[in-house]
């Protein structure tokens, strides 16, 4: 789960990381009032859960409250990579003499949180990392020790931070780590961490992602989820315990397991050519039970582009008979004429096939293998 910039910065502030004292507006009028109360030139920043908002025109300077109104009017309602802007953050404008990158994420290769920094902060940091890896300074953090002062000093020295800022930098880095751990985050990033022309260090922008698996014990964070910022189907899928990502093709896919779900998409792409492709990624997860399967089918069928549905279920912990009952339950609730290709294998798959056959449903073809299923689904989508 991703947090908005304004949520991230509020959380950073609660850990003592210096951030600008801006506020969030949902209307141009609010934006004007906030700018007026700040009394200085401001930046109007789109709050969307995706990157690249600057290039998309989602960040604008405003010299006065009227300009803030105007810019907010333009930005609110904008679509940035399919994310609609519902909120803007009004921050005092800053003078920037230096931009630093400072981020923490999990390094899966060593199984530890990794603190990274570069003196070349800003949006081009990935390019810096690719072209000049040494410009990124790294400290792996032992989870039982936490981030130690000397590690933050090593980074400060490594990025040639002027020594007068070391004390603040060490505090910011340690606060960022505490915030990361105590939020069960998978990402906590300050980019850029700036030195202003007044020689003050603070976090100009911030990003956090929270481990979905840990939200059960981070209720305060779970409540910060902005479902208005997400496609409706993805929200529905999550609430049903599914993973769903909408794509641009015609064949709805319902598969158990992320690897097999991707493979099923790959096979549709491989055999489908230019005209037919997967309509979605959908993993019903392990041990999926009937209700979840029904919810998944409803979500797939809500996509008007879907011309055929491919069920590819290879039971392990998931049991074929339960999937079959789920399909029948969903088709009873959501009648449809869209053709379906069902391929059941693995645990309890014979029982599952018997249930499907016994239901005598129209528009259903069965498939024996993955390749067979993909090809039949492609035929069905083309025939429709």
């Amino acid at each position, binding site marked *: 789960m*991703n947090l908005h910039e304004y949520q991230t910065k509020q959380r950073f502030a609660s850990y003592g990381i210096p951030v600008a004292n801006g506020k969030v507006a949902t209307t141009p009028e609010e934006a004007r009032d906030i700018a007026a109360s700040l009394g200085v030139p401001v930046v109007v920043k789109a709050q969307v*859960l995706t*990157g690249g908002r600057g290039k998309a025109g989602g960040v604008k300077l405003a010299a006065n409250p009227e300009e803030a109104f105007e810019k907010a009017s333009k930005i609110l309602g904008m679509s940035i*990579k399919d994310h609609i802007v519902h909120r803007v953050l009004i921050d005092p404008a800053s003078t920037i003499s230096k931009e630093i*990158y400072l*981020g*923490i*994420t*999990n390094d*899966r*290769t060593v*199984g*530890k949180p*990794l603190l*990274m920094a570069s003196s070349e902060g800003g949006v081009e940091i*990935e390019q810096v*990392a690719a072209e000049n890896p040494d410009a*990124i300074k790294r400290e792996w953090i032992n*989870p*039982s020790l936490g981030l130690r002062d000397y590690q933050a000093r090593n980074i400060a020295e490594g990025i040639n931070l002027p020594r007068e800022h070391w004390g603040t930098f060490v505090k910011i880095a340690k606060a960022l780590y505490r915030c990361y751990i105590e939020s*069960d985050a*998978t*990402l906590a*990033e300050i980019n850029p961490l700036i030195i202003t022309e007044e020689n003050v260090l603070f976090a100009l922008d911030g*990003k956090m*992602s929270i*481990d979905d*698996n*840990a939200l059960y*014990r981070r209720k305060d964070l779970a409540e910060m989820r902005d479902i208005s910022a997400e496609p409706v189907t993805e929200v529905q899928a999550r609430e049903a315990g599914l993973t769903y990502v909408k*794509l641009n093709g015609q064949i709805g896919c319902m598969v158990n*397991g*992320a*690897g*097999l779900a*991707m*493979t099923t*998409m*790959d*096979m*549709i*792409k*491989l055999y489908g050519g230019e005209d037919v*492709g*997967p309509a979605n*990624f959908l993993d019903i*997860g*392990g*041990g999926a039970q009937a209700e979840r399967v029904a919810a998944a089918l409803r979500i797939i069928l809500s996509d008007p582009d879907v011309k055929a549905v491919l069920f590819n279920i*290879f*039971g*392990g*912990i998931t049991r074929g008979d339960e999937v079959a009952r789920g399909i029948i339950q969903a088709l009873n609730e959501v009648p449809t004429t869209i053709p379906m290709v069902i391929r059941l*294998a*693995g*645990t309890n*798959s014979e029982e599952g096939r018997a249930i499907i056959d016994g239901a005598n449903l129209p528009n259903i073809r069965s498939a024996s*293998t*993955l*390749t067979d299923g993909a090809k039949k689904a492609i035929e069905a989508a083309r025939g429709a």
Partner: protein
Amino acid sequence: MAILIDSNSRVVVQGITGREGNFHSLKMIEYGTNVVGGVTPGKGGEWVHGKPVFDTVKAAVDATDANVSMILVPAPFAADAIYEAIDAGVALIVCLTEGIPILDMTGVYEYLKNSNSRLIGPNCPGLMTPGQAKVGFMPNYVGMPGNVGVVSKSGTLTYETVAAMSAAGFGQSTCVGIGGDPIIGTTFVDVLEMFENDPQTEKVVLMGEIGGRAEIDAAEFIKAKMTKPVVAFIAGRSAPPNTRMGHAGAIVEGGQGTAEQKIDALRAAGARIADNPEHIPSLLS
């Protein structure tokens, strides 16, 4: 020979009294796995499928000499279950549980490194040495004894591939699902090394997917150390580019996470690449 499990493995099931633990223990017993007992705190003294239930892993190990533990407890309790198995001296721990917070696994990973236990998983389908033993979810019928080692990040994709291999007459030495979580106990490289050293294994099948750099590490290992032929499949070629938050993940991976990059690295290391997992048998010939 085989790797990790065989007919001598003595398996205890942590979470045996749960719905899934009960069901899959039965499947394992039917497969011929030597399940010697189960653990559920507070239910010591009960019996499941004729096997004794203990309150603690320590008690189970003391009573049964178990050397493998399968963990199938809810995610909030899984890290504790792994620590308990490590402390009880269980040599091989197979954690099937999905949804364990990364922070929990960070601690487990550190503890594990300094222990004598090996962890497979979490969030994995387990493993199977066909004809000898199965620990986990793999459907009983898919495997067939033979000399191809199989290692995979994905559960169901493994079943798919193993079933196709068996149907085509390519039996397996051992099939290992390492799990796809960010932090796992046993990596591709670990398993490749075991297969390289296993006399029974003649060829190896590797199934990876997009994200992370485990397949890149595997390619480097194959290039440097493997003498046995490897056939690989990478899932996710059709996945849209990741729209990830922030830059940290990309910096860590160093831009090596796409299917194309992984396929290129594996091909350059000498592996044969399958476009379709059902074509793997033909590439094994």
